[in-house]
């Protein structure tokens, strides 16, 4: 007796070559590191691994064999979202190897990069997963090496405390997530995401009412479990402590990579992107597992809370890494706005439709934040630390070019026009404003809360610019910084400017907004509804 989807399952392996390449390189690094401690060598090997993975991704087969109803059987789905996530993950990995290059002891470099490659593979798999089990495994493939990664570069008390804190709370959040998955499985009888979506859609209106209580518990616990990764309030507490305690490259890592995994996992498991082959009911205007407007409302509250708490607490920070942690929380709030509006916008063709805006904002956030971390890594020296905002005083005199680039990044974080931060905020807020429906007034309100928050946020970003340009240093920074982190900084700044306006902005949008991202709807859906 053969499995009904035998051919389709076998087909998956052709698509998994990039992840396989990464794992092979990771193994090679783990073993090679035992024999030779050389950060240049292993950094180069890791970059090579990422490049080869990227090449295999380019030549990977374009379409997946989904004959029959295989979409309800396969654990992995290689659609547009998967490809965008994998490219984003690979690019992020490359930047991180550059960032961590000089932040590591020679002995730990190989292990660090090996863990990083495993994590990158894990993030890619999160983007592909179509099954709750596969998704959980992919998420753990991100989490477990992260614990090692946080522990490796520094062994002082602070770093160890940070690693332990992250470990405990991360495990806790995974437990909550698994709890939610179990409810979803109990409700729908399948671990396949496309399948569970189909079951929830298929339930008639009356049945939907009877299951909605369980569905809501599932939804909330899943959101809570993933909310840890995206630092949504009230699951954010670890972020400032851990990021302040750990090494700078570790903090940079935590600020971005778990957010990619978390947001993509939310998009997958909540069905913001409906897999091709799932039949959406005609009368339903929303997509996702929200059987009512519960999902958007949940994200509405998460968004409002997250950005407000993040911005207000960031106002009080003097430590740069802690400030960036709160800034990351605030930006997660802006991205949650996109998710809150996404179910209502899924039928629109424009770039402001929620998921596209979210992906754009993710890229934007990555460029800006990693750029700032690159500056800290570049200029920080034990004898002349760059820990607090005041340590940046006089940067405009000692490093005019770097100061200018930091200014660009800060303006982008504020959301100044002609920077990628502005384009991202514009797409998110505009999407929220254009929601229509019975409770549509909620969304412009959310956009207004977002704009107010952006105004509050401008204060602490502008403060950094002011310190750089208006104050002079007691002891000027002398180092010019190592080449790898300088390269990372320049790449981030160039992307911040280049991707803000056409044609750069269009590249992301076309990559993120092609047809696979939108639910395939039966022809009847396109007819005007009464």
């Amino acid at each position, binding site marked *: 007796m053969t499995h009904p989807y035998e051919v389709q399952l076998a087909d998956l392996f052709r698509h998994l070559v990039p992840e396989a390449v990464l794992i092979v390189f990771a193994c090679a690094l783990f073993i090679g590191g035992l024999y030779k401690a050389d950060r240049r060598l292993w950094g180069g090997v890791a970059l090579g691994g990422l490049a080869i993975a990227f090449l295999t991704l380019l030549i990977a087969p374009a379409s997946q064999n989904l004959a029959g109803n295989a979409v309800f059987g396969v654990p992995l789905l290689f659609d547009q979202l998967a490809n965008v996530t994998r490219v984003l993950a690979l690019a992020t990995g490359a930047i991180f190897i550059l960032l961590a290059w000089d932040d590591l002891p020679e002995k730990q470099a190989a292990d660090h990069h090996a863990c990083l490659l495993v994590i990158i593979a894990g993030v890619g798999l999160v983007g592909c997963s179509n099954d709750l089990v596969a998704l959980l495994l992919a998420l753990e493939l991100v989490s477990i090496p992260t614990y090692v990664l946080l522990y490796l570069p520094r062994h002082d008390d602070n770093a160890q405390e940070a690693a332990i804190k992250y470990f405990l709370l991360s495990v*806790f959040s995974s437990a909550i997530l698994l709890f939610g998955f179990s409810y979803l499985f109990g409700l729908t009888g399948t671990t396949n995401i496309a399948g569970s979506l189909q079951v929830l859609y298929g339930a008639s209106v009356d049945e939907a009412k009877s299951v909605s209580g369980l569905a809501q518990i599932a939804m909330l616990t899943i959101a*809570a479990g993933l909310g*840890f990764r995206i630092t949504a309030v009230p699951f954010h507490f*670890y972020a400032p402590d851990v990021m302040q305690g750990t090494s700078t490259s570790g903090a940079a890592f935590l600020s971005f990579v778990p957010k990619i995994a978390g947001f993509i996992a939310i998009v997958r498991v909540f069905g913001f992107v409906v897999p091709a082959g799932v039949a959406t009911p005609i009368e339903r205007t929303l997509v996702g597992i929200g059987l009512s407007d519960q999902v958007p409302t949940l994200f509405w509250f998460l968004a409002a809370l997250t950005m407000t708490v993040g911005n207000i607490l960031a106002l009080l920070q003097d430590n740069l890494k802690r400030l960036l942690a709160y800034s990351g929380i605030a930006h997660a709030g802006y991205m949650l706005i996109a998710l809150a509006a996404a179910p209502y916008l899924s039928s629109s063709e424009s770039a402001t439709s929620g998921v596209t805006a979210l992906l754009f904002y993710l890229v934007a956030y990555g460029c800006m934040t990693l750029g700032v971390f690159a500056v800290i890594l570049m200029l920080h020296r034990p004898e002349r630390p760059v820990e607090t905002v005041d340590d940046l005083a006089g940067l405009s005199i000692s490093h005019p070019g770097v100061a200018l680039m930091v200014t660009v990044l800060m303006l982008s974080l504020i959301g100044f026009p002609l920077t990628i931060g502005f384009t991202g905020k514009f797409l998110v807020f505009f999407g929220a404003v254009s929601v229509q429906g019975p409770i549509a007034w909620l969304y412009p309100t959310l956009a207004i809360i977002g704009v107010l928050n952006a105004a509050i946020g401008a204060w602490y970003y502008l403060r950094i610019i002011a310190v750089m340009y208006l104050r002079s240093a007691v002891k000027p920074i002398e180092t010019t910084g190592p080449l790898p982190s300088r390269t990372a900084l320049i790449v981030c700044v160039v992307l911040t400017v280049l991707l803000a306006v056409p044609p750069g902005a269009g590249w992301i949008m076309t990559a993120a907004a092609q047809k696979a991202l939108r639910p395939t709807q039966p022809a009847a859906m396109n007819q005007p509804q009464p």
Partner: protein
Amino acid sequence: MFDFGITCLWLIPLLPLAASVIIALFGRRWLPDQCHLPCIAAAIGACVFSVIAFSAVASEPQPIAFGKDLAWISAGDVKANFSLRADGLTAVMLVMVTFIGSLIAIYSAGYMHGDPGYPRFFAAVSLFLFFMVGLVLANNFVLLYACWEGVGLCSYLLIGFWFAKPSAATAARKAFLVTRLGDIGLLIGIMILWTHSPGHSLEYDAVFAHADKYPSGVLFWACVCLFIGAAGKSAQFPLHVWLPDAMEGPSPVSALIHAATMVTAGVYLIARCVPLFALEPGAQLLVAGIGGFTALLAAVIAVTQTDLKRVLAYSTLSQLGFMFLALGSGIHFGEHKLAALAVTAAIFHLFTHAFFKALLFLSAGSVMHAMGNVIDMRQFGGLRKALPITHWTFLCGAAALAGVPLLSGFWSKDEVLVSVYDAWKHSPHYGGTYCLLFFSALFTAGLTAFYTARAYFKTFWGEEKLPPEAGHHPHEAPPIMAWPLRILAVGAVGVGVVLGPTHLFAKMLETRWAPPHLAAHPPGPNVVLMVFSVILAGVGIGLAYWMYVIQPSAAEHLARRMATIYEFSSKKFYFDELYDWTIVKPITILAHVCRIVDTYLIDGLVDLVGMGPAIVGYLVRPVQNGLVQFYAILMALGLAGFLLSVLLR
């Protein structure tokens, strides 16, 4: 040839822009003393291409157009392209601007030598040339407006070039603000045209083809608004007060921007829009009236000024007034189609004026250079022997300005007078006013000869007198300054006789620019009028010779006899004081009141609001206490809170 002409068209503005960018980016570091080279090269290159474009225009019956589909702004109904065009009018302006610009750039290399702001100067001059050629090349009102503001900006930068000097900074600000006042008029005029033009197009062809279909009142106000813009830029009454102060800038700037090119942009604008103005006799009368009045007013003020550059500045005002007077005399009624002729007269005067006035300013600059930056005519005199080259070139320019027969000013001023005379004879309703304007213009022409001769005699004749700043041996202009002076002197003397009586200039405009319904053949010279104006010029010069050379005490005697008029004239009729009391002072008081309200009331409120988030932050902060078990509890409580809120709803 045609294709090549199109290529030249976009190269002409591009060269100065490139020069400006190069100087601004690399000038200070890599060529601190060679900054003039890119500027001069770009100006000469632009001049060569302008001549090529000119010949292309002359050989083609249709205007050359470029970039009709090169979209620039497309926002709703507002559309604008980077469209350039070259017809007769543009070609003439282009050649004039780039030729004079090249000579002045060369002259500046000597004049500005050793100034700490050397790179900044040439970057700004190049940028100015870019905007100026863009202004005359534009084929729609939006591009024209953009360049219009651009030249204003460059003028601001260059008047305030020595910004450490308070008077220069004040003059720059004054010039910018007063011209901005006019620009508001221009913008409103463009908006009116946009509202009513077919398909909301702002391309020249679309707007002008539609001219007779505008509602009459609308067209009148559009013309008035355009003229306000032109009056601001060309310093016509009552917005004339900025130009004399603008002499605080370096002399080459005065020559280039405030005599030859930028200030004539207003004249160019009205000439360009003559298809609109020809249909509105009321607006034309306004143009002529303001022009004639400014010409007279400025000439009267010029008679008593003691600062050589200010005499020339008021003379510029006066000559610009002549141009507007001609533009306003182009009545278009019945069989009397004088509009194109009047524009020809105005543009011809603009053309010749650019030569002799640039020459006069550069010569004045040379005097100033030699006198150690002293420009007060009471402190020097009899410089004929000390500065021979400057003396001769100044004489050429002054004679041309005064209207000495056969020199360029004579021909063009005569054409202006003829067009006013024709307007008087043929205007259906306003003949009387034009008659008044005609005689006022004749009197002004006499005054022009007088004050020009006065400035010349006071500077170069009489007993040799040097200010202490000059040292013992005033140095004549170095060759790099002298040669542009010589070339311009040849132009000031000869350009009129070559182009005027031969009708070369008139034919170029008539066949390559004038709309067919406005064109008419130029009439023969009016001999009576010529003789009359020669007599007036002779009287003016003779009087000045008598008062300042033969009988130097006569001037003071006369001044005492006519004390009231003298006082009014030398105090510029108190316009600055009047504006200060009626406009500047009240606004300053209002500003102070606003500042008090802002500092104590609004700032207080804003500070209160701004403290809000920080206070909330302090309240929330203790939650972040660093204990991991506490965080886990909070996460669980948060989840529980969400669950309860959903389930109990």
